[in-house]
């Protein structure tokens, strides 16, 4: 096992703002020329990634996440703004002169070199001594559990093994940051989950900043310290996985990360930081709001499906002052660990409700049943319109 020189510990998310950032974007934007038109790939971006952080860029294809990563690596130059590595301006510096390494989508291993030669490639370019290369490659292959595979050619290895060669080839150089471009995309589900845990372990062991590009929200949620959710060249929200899941800042984030129920309405009353939106005499949504929200304002409220309780038949007694929506069950889908219901509500929106199958042997309701959905005020979340 190595004990890398880097003393950087995965710092708390807040440290990005205070200490020296590993990677910083200042007013970066990137345009492409396509048939004479300028197409923005990344719109104005300010971003600071902390030393030792596991940072994910998450978004659908074409959202600019890969372009952002390639600007860190130096394969793309920003159309405007500056990129800093460890506080040093690297805008315009060639990729081979940047102290970051990349794990490519589908690995891009050198097909004519064996495992050892692939991993040693970077160190040889840096003119590290033969003995030192041998030692470091050996240690790195041990970290990624590939000892004994030194002589194998890439095509003689499984996808998971190639993946680990790609990882070792980058990490052996002790870069200031490791960039991973959808590195698990080509693996099957089981292997992917295993590699997620592996990656996280390796990141803890070597303490290097990881920047992880993915369109898989599950992957981003499980591995990251912080996530930047991108859409159409803009970071829609930046925060910890929990913040992003529990408090989606925009409608896009609410929809892209997990499943969200979204209802619209006008504020009827505010009281103790809670706003009331009613649809009928008994159908109402209660949502915590800031002081800026006034009576009559239009609001959008997001509710996660697993936070909702469903009752069949009679309206429940609600002394807590939470939300209540009546509706009719449209669909019941059994998922093993849970059952998903689709309910057409009085608020006009279809709601998805997850019910854990922990204690219920029977379904809560059948298609066509009249039901009442209730949830506590803190589970309603107002999203930016």
């Amino acid at each position, binding site marked *: 096992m190595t004990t890398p020189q880097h003393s950087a510990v995965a710092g708390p998310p807040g440290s990005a703002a205070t200490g020296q950032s590993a990677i910083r974007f200042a007013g970066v934007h990137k345009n492409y020329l396509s048939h004479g038109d300028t197409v923005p790939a990344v719109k104005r971006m300010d971003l600071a990634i902390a030393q030792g952080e596991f940072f994910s860029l998450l978004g659908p294809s074409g959202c600019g996440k890969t372009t952002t990563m390639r600007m860190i690596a130096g394969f793309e130059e920003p159309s405007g703004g500056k990129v800093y590595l460890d506080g040093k301006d690297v805008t315009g510096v060639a990729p081979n002169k940047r102290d970051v*390494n*990349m794990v490519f*989508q*589908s690995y891009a291993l*050198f*097909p*004519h070199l064996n495992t050892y030669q692939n991993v040693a*490639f970077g160190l040889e370019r840096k003119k590290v001594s033969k003995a030192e290369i041998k030692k470091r490659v050996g240690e790195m292959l041990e970290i990624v559990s590939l000892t004994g595979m030194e002589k194998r050619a890439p095509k003689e290895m499984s996808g998971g093994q190639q993946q680990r060669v790609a990882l070792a*080839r980058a990490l052996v150089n002790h870069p200031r940051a490791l960039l991973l471009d959808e590195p698990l995309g080509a693996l099957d589900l089981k292997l992917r989950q295993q590699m997620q845990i592996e990656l996280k372990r390796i990141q803890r062991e070597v303490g290097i900043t990881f920047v992880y590009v993915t369109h898989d929200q599950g992957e981003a949620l499980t591995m990251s310290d912080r996530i930047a959710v991108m859409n159409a060249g803009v970071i829609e929200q930046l925060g910890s996985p929990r913040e992003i899941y529990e408090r989606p800042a925009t409608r896009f984030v609410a929809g892209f990360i997990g499943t969200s129920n979204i209802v619209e309405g006008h504020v009827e009353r505010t009281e103790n930081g809670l706003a009331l939106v009613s649809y009928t005499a008994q159908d109402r949504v209660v949502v915590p709001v800031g002081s800026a929200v006034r009576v009559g304002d239009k609001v959008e409220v997001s509710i996660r499906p697993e936070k909702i309780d469903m009752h069949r038949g009679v309206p429940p007694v609600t002394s807590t002052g939470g939300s209540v929506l009546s509706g009719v069950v449209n669909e019941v889908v059994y998922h093993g660990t849970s059952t998903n219901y689709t309910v057409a509500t009085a608020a006009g929106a279809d709601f998805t409700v997850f019910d854990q199958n922990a204690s219920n042997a029977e379904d809560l309701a059948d298609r066509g049943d009249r039901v009442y959905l209730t949830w506590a005020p803190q589970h309603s979340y107002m999203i930016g319109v």
Partner: protein
Amino acid sequence: MDRVKRQLAPYFLVLPGGLWLLLFFAIPMIAMLSLSLQQGDIVNGYQFTFHWQNYTDAIDSYHTQLIRSLIYGAVATIFLIVLAFPVAYWIAFYGGKRKSTYLFLLLLPFFVSFVLRTISWRQILTDDGPVLKPLKEIGLLSDSYHILGTPAAVIGGLVYNFLPFMVLPIYVALERIDPRVVEAARDLYANPATAFRKVILPLALPGVFAGVLMSFVPVSSDYVNSEVLGSSSTTMIGQVIQAQYLVNSDYPTASALSFILMAVLLVGIFAYARALGTEDVMKVAAR
């Protein structure tokens, strides 16, 4: 019944190709071998007598042309690599959406007959032609300067005529290189020159290897370029064989020379393959 059919199917499939080989390769080869061991003359006819002396006589008389052909072949092949690599590289990496157009443009001249194109080179390079005449008039070249009839003209013609045979295999090898592999080299601290030397070149070597195989053999046995662009001092072995067959009707000598040329080329190719075999290409590249 079905099982028998299934077992026989591969043999039926190989039948057309096998017949083709038998008819157009094996039988002519045997005929030629027998011809090369015959004795006699065109008037009285040739008799099969195991006359191995045909071979030693042929070598004695024509080793100069044979060696010259191999040298021309080797020099032309080297020029072909030097010229073809940049062309193939440019099309493969910078051709973008127009790759096929560029390849088509490269092949376009070759839709015109081989001999016609070579003859037009004679028109272009002739002593008072469009290239040499103006240069002589302004005094850059002496009046006695000429290109036609020199080894340079013959080798130039060979390089021109066989360029696609070198460009295409190298292009195929380069085109297959994943651009991300080159980026990976750049990411791992290789400057553009090192990335070329350590990644692109080794991955292109199998293409160069194939190109050499495809051009060295026909170039060495070519008989048109020297005939049209050369002189008696540039005679190649292909011309000798042709003359023996069609002019002197000395079939045994022509056949013996053909076999000698084939043997020499095969030995050369195998030696080359051994030194730089496709498997070993990878190992050489890794060093």
